[in-house]
């Protein structure tokens, strides 16, 4: 086995660098200002993360990754307005946000389609909440359902759909509100590997067709790299931003890129950031005694 020397994960091709330049010139949609989340008070105070600062530009795709307990879900929930930060600010189009609103659509890990509504009525929900007339809402909902490829299922109930289809409806439902930013909290976490891979491709296709900025939480390194423009890496002990990385893998993304040098370099870096400072696993200390010799002769 030969070890291939990987390039520096920060090294960008001219095309990729030009793309990031263009992204930086776009207006800022979401500003995260010195965000802190802590539980408890006094000596028992536990800081989940602090000093999180980030500007997200229009139509940028940001993934957030980190070990469990780093507060990545809490972070996105604060942006959504479902949790409160201890200090710091979230600005959407320069206006501070404090409570949930349709300008920040969210797709959850669990299935949160309303089980008593058909696919169409689920997608219409946000539109109706915002006072859209039933017929307009219906026409608009149909377009979004079409876009996620579920036109045949518009009158089905959520329990009749597979996990991947449910999440596609959830995406359509969030996008129907034409949010400024789409928040996705490990949306494919409950899906099997095959479906997950398909959904990642779907998501990039949808993102290409819609004017939407995406903040995507995941714990899967491949997923984080495959989807993102930039990756926000959070850590624990102490909690906070480890690094914000500009993804050097060019677009459009393909399956072959998973073995490209940039991809592997970035993956190695992420792996180091997330697992590098972890103490050795308990499993490494397991006793070495064996219980069987069956099958040894075949080796």
């Amino acid at each position, binding site marked *: 086995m030969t070890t291939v020397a990987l390039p520096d994960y920060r090294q960008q091709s001219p095309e990729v660098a030009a793309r990031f330049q263009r992204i930086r010139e776009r207006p800022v949609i979401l500003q995260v200002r010195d965000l802190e989340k802590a539980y408890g008070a006094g000596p028992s105070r536990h800081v989940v993360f602090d000093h999180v600062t980030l500007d997200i530009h229009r139509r940028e795709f940001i993934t957030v990754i980190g070990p469990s307990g780093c507060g990545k879900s809490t972070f996105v929930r604060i942006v959504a307005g479902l949790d409160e930060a201890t200090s710091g600010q979230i600005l959407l189009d320069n206006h501070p946000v404090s409570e949930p609103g349709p300008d920040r*659509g969210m797709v959850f890990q669990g299935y949160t389609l309303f089980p008593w509504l058909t696919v169409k009525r689920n997608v219409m929900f946000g539109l109706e*909440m915002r006072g859209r007339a039933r017929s307009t809402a219906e026409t608009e909902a149909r377009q979004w359902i079409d876009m996620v490829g579920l036109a045949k299922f518009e009158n089905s109930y959520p329990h009749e759909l*597979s996990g991947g289809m449910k999440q596609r409806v959830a995406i359509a439902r969030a996008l129907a509100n034409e949010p400024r930013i789409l928040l996705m909290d490990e949306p494919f976490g409950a899906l099997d590997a095959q479906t997950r891979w398909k959904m990642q491709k779907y998501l990039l296709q949808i993102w290409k067709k819609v004017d939407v900025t995406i903040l995507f939480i995941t714990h899967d390194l491949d997923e984080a790299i495959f989807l993102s423009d930039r990756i926000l890496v959070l850590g624990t002990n102490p909690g906070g931003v480890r690094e914000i990385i500009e993804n050097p893998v060019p677009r459009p993304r393909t399956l072959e890129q998973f073995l490209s040098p940039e991809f592997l370099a970035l993956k190695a870096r992420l792996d180091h950031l997330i697992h590098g400072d972890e103490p050795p696993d308990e499993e490494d200390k397991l006793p070495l005694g064996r219980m069987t010799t069956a099958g040894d002769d075949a080796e």
Partner: protein
Amino acid sequence: MAEPAAAAAAPTRRRVWLKPFSDQSVPGQALFVWLSFLLPLVVWAAVSYVPFLWHPLVKIQDPASVSYFRPDTLVERSVFRAENAKLAAAGKPLATGTPANPVFLPAPHEVAQAFHKSFTTPPRRKGEKWLHESLWQSIQVIFWGFTISSLIGVPLGILCGTFQPIAKLTEPFVDFTRYMPAPAFGALAVAVLGIYDPPKIAIIFLGTFFQQVLVIANTTRKLDPALIEAAQTLGARRPQLLFRVIVPGCAFDLYNDMRILLGWAWTYLIVAEYIGASSGITFFINQQAKYRIYDNVFAAIIIIGILGFTTDRFLAWLGVHLFPWKRRRSSAPAT
């Protein structure tokens, strides 16, 4: 080749039958529904018609020379034997009789006849009601008691389940009152509301209402909070959350709660009808028991069962149509 296949199939079938928590349908499942009614009926018929099962009494046919035996009366088997032994010792002809069950256990066919009879026979005394009139009165009492309770209890329960302060304000007192048996309020209800239907409706209300608030509140709390969060990120505000998410989200479970609570109301009916001027189906049952017409008593009790069971079946059927999203039409298609 056929034999091993058959051998393999047999244990599989057995496994399906006794698989814990299985939702697979077993061939001939409909039969079980019938059996669940048929088996008790078979036991009842066996005890009634097979002479050596139970039958602790003897129905006298020919009293012979026993002074206190009369034709068609029932005596204990031991007494009958003792008297016959005396007659035999004296060399006189023996008394005859057939094994019989106590009068309070009529045979199925007698109850079946009573069923017909109780609807077609006029009441014994003037002013007493026909069975169907008694039933109708009971149904009205239960309807009003349950409806009034639900009109207040369901909204209150949903509010308690949704808003913490309302729960804090309501539930301790409701919990406290819940432990006072509704019938304990009987005398009070009569003093305030008179002796006819109003105090009975009040007892059903008291018996149902306090349980209802707590049950409904608990069911409401079981709604997946993620659905509420999802609705919030879609732009739903508080009244919309309540009417567009919480109420429809709980509706199916609330509906089933109501079915169970209605059964509860029937239990309180019997107590309620004893209060003030005894009325309704309870009065009918008591009256028939006084006349020792136990076949009518059984018929009336069974009618309550049939009424309750058909109501519940009807509500279950209605539920399937009210909540189409609870129906499993087909297995989930692939992504």
